[in-house]
């Protein structure tokens, strides 16, 4: 590994860590202003992070975030902003839960595999609407996916309320019909850690291979960087837009799966953490669209949320974590921008030096 590459990795890692530290400082100030002791809060969260139960919980919370982060990062690589992850996974979760109950005759591994395939197809299909509007009608994907999110949530609520409501015994929890046991994703640690963590790692690995190591990935990134230049070398940016959005939607389909196949074994309208698709954007930004970055930042977000559950004991609202997350996103993009500019400047200076050096060696004076 050459020196420049090492330096770039160093700058990236340092700026991400700086952003997180900056967010902690800001939140410390907010805690102080509202009369809480920041050191006490951070100490409590740190101690909680050492507990095994909290660690499992953190991984559980990080799993959907890894899917969401990958989905968003796929779009980012093609210079697309897929805000629609939220809608894509809801549609996918509902349809999968319904299909899952109808194919109970399949043996266990096949049953789960079919369910996952259905989720992918649904997520991709919902993202496909935005892709169609963008490519054929010139509608900006940000606006289109925001609208499609709202439509998806309404559509899912309507389908669920009118056709698929099912009340289990006398429980308060209204869900769809339960999925038979063969369609469940098994736990790694009983009731604490679900198998979807492994799936998430596999998906992140696949993301790495597809985007960074394959011919398709190269074309995707080239087109995202500069679609005019890519077009001149024969890469259709329209096709890349469609493929990237479809892939992004397909990965987004996985987000709701841990809840649907691993935990409640049915679709329930209250089951999902609100805004998980949006947190995925934060994960992708903090992780700089890099697979390892995505895994680490998803784990960080999971750990923050899990250890915050202990804050109730010292009478500090655990909502402080949401502020930390928001500030992390904002500071990470600001730090990225600033460090990017700094690196550019360094490169420019170095190039200028090299040219000057070369010229003096040739005996030319400026």
């Amino acid at each position, binding site marked *: 590994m050459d020196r420049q590459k090492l330096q770039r990795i160093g700058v990236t890692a340092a700026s991400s860590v700086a952003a997180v530290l900056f967010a902690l400082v800001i939140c410390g100030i*907010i805690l102080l202003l*509202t*009369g809480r002791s920041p050191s006490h809060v951070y100490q409590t969260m740190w101690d909680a992070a050492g507990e095994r139960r909290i660690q499992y919980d953190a991984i559980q919370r990080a799993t959907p975030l890894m899917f969401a982060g990958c989905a968003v990062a796929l779009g980012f690589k093609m210079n697309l*902003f897929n*805000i629609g992850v939220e809608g894509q996974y809801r549609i996918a979760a509902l349809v999968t839960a319904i299909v899952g109950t109808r194919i109970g005759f399949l043996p266990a591994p096949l049953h789960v595999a079919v369910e996952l395939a259905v989720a992918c197809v649904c997520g991709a299909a919902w993202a496909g609407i935005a892709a169609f*509007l963008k490519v054929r*009608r*010139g*509608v900006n994907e*940000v*606006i*289109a996916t*925001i*609208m*499609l999110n*709202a*439509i998806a949530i*309404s*559509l899912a*609520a*309507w389908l669920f*309320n*009118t056709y698929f409501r099912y009340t289990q015994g006398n429980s308060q929890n209204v869900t769809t019909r339960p999925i038979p046991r063969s369609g469940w994703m098994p736990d790694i640690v009983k009731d604490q850690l679900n198998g979807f963590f492994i799936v998430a790692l596999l998906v992140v690995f696949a993301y790495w291979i597809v985007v960074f190591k394959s011919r398709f990935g190269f074309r995707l990134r080239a087109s995202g960087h500069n679609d005019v230049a890519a077009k001149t070398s024969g890469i259709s940016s329209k096709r890349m837009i469609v493929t990237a959005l479809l892939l992004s939607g397909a990965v987004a389909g996985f987000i709701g799966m841990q809840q649907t196949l691993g935990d409640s074994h049915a679709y329930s309208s209250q089951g999902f953490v609100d*805004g998980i698709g*949006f*947190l995925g*954007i*934060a994960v992708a*930004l903090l992780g700089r669209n890099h697979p390892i970055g995505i895994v680490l930042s998803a784990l960080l977000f999971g750990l923050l949320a899990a250890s915050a559950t202990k804050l109730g004991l010292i009478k500090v*609202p655990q*909502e*402080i*974590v*949401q*502020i930390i*997350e*928001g*500030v992390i*996103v*904002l500071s990470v*993009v*600001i730090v990225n*921008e*600033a460090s990017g500019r700094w690196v550019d400047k360094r490169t420019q200076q170095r190039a200028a030096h090299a040219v000057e050096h070369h010229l003096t060696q040739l005996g030319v004076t400026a």
Partner: protein
Amino acid sequence: MSLTQADVDLAGPPRRSAALLWSSRSSRQRILISAALTFLLLSVVREKTGAYDLTSSGTVTATLHLALPILFAGLSGLWAERVGIVNIGIEGMMILGTWGGGFGAWKYGPWVGLLFAMIGGMIGGMVHALATVRFNVDHVISGFSINLLAAGAVRYLSAVYFVGKKGAHGGVGSVSLSPPQKGTIPEITLRFITDRANASCLTKPSGLFWVECRRWFVVSDAAGIARGFLSQMSLATILGLGLVPITAWIMWRTRFGLRLRSSGEAPSAAESLGVKVLRLRYIAMAVSGAMAGLGGGYLAIVTNTQYKEGMTANRGYIGLATMIFGNWRPTGLLGGAALFSYSDALRLRNNKSIPALLLFVGLILLLFSVSAIMRQRWVTAYFTGGAALLFFVLYATVHRLSDDLTSAAPYIITLIVLASASQRLRPPAFSGRPYRPGDSH
């Protein structure tokens, strides 16, 4: 607007087609004609279907209440985009506004509440300005993180300041609820013209309300709409409606407005003429944030009597949609807000009038389709015609629409508009692109 001789020559032999009549009108005349046509069509549908709520004064009052937050959000988007900044953070700024409004109104009364709401939104706007103008962060990412931040911030603040605190009527605050506030913003009702606000057609109505209850074609419809505007008008509503012409005047009739718009269209050119683009962007973002905050404050103070978590319910995004729907113009914005809130008001008041609304929308789409055919815009004609057909089928088959589905209507309409007319929409040319002074050559 009068035609010159050259215009007549260019147009060739006079053709009295509707399309030509339409295209020779000034934009003000067009707006008036469309408003009159809409009203007439509405009266016809009301008469034919017997869905009296289509033009009742109660519907108008409800529409106004629902329209104002969307209108504020749309204005917020307009101020930001006209100066060149994409504002996805309207939702977050509104959330800050609802909290500020709830807090201020609970502690110091409704007017101070509105002020606090404005300040809350403005804080969000300034964060957005700082990120996008000073640090050149991608506008969508910054706006989105403001939404994330605001949602967390208000939950935290509520937990600190609201939990267990007492308000009016013995109401107690919680993580998701502010203690109820004492007073309300005064409402104006011209009683001698419009009758009492809570009068009913069964008791002896008087004034405009008497005319409304006769159910005469066109006359009663006009009376109903007029009464809606003259009774139970909150001062905050009047203030909000007033902001639309004020915004239009500032942006299109003043030097400041010209500079503001020029920095959204061509900032380098503006800068070269001595316009202080960056300063304008900060100012416009402060206004944009204040507008969004007011929208939130209106929700917490006028439509409700306290702050509730999630009460913005994506209205920031709907506001953004209205702005696009209205082609980045104040009048269009007003039309969009009226459309979205009217359908919502009908749904909330009386679900049975929804089929009548479907018929109405179908007829309007049909008109658009016909006009598109005459102008030989086949794609638009195809889209609108198909949509019209869909609405007629819905009218014939549906008797009650699920709330879940009708709540998606604004978004679907926006997507249809974007898909069929995105070529004709004209956003500010430089909106959303990174700009640093002296950077572009």
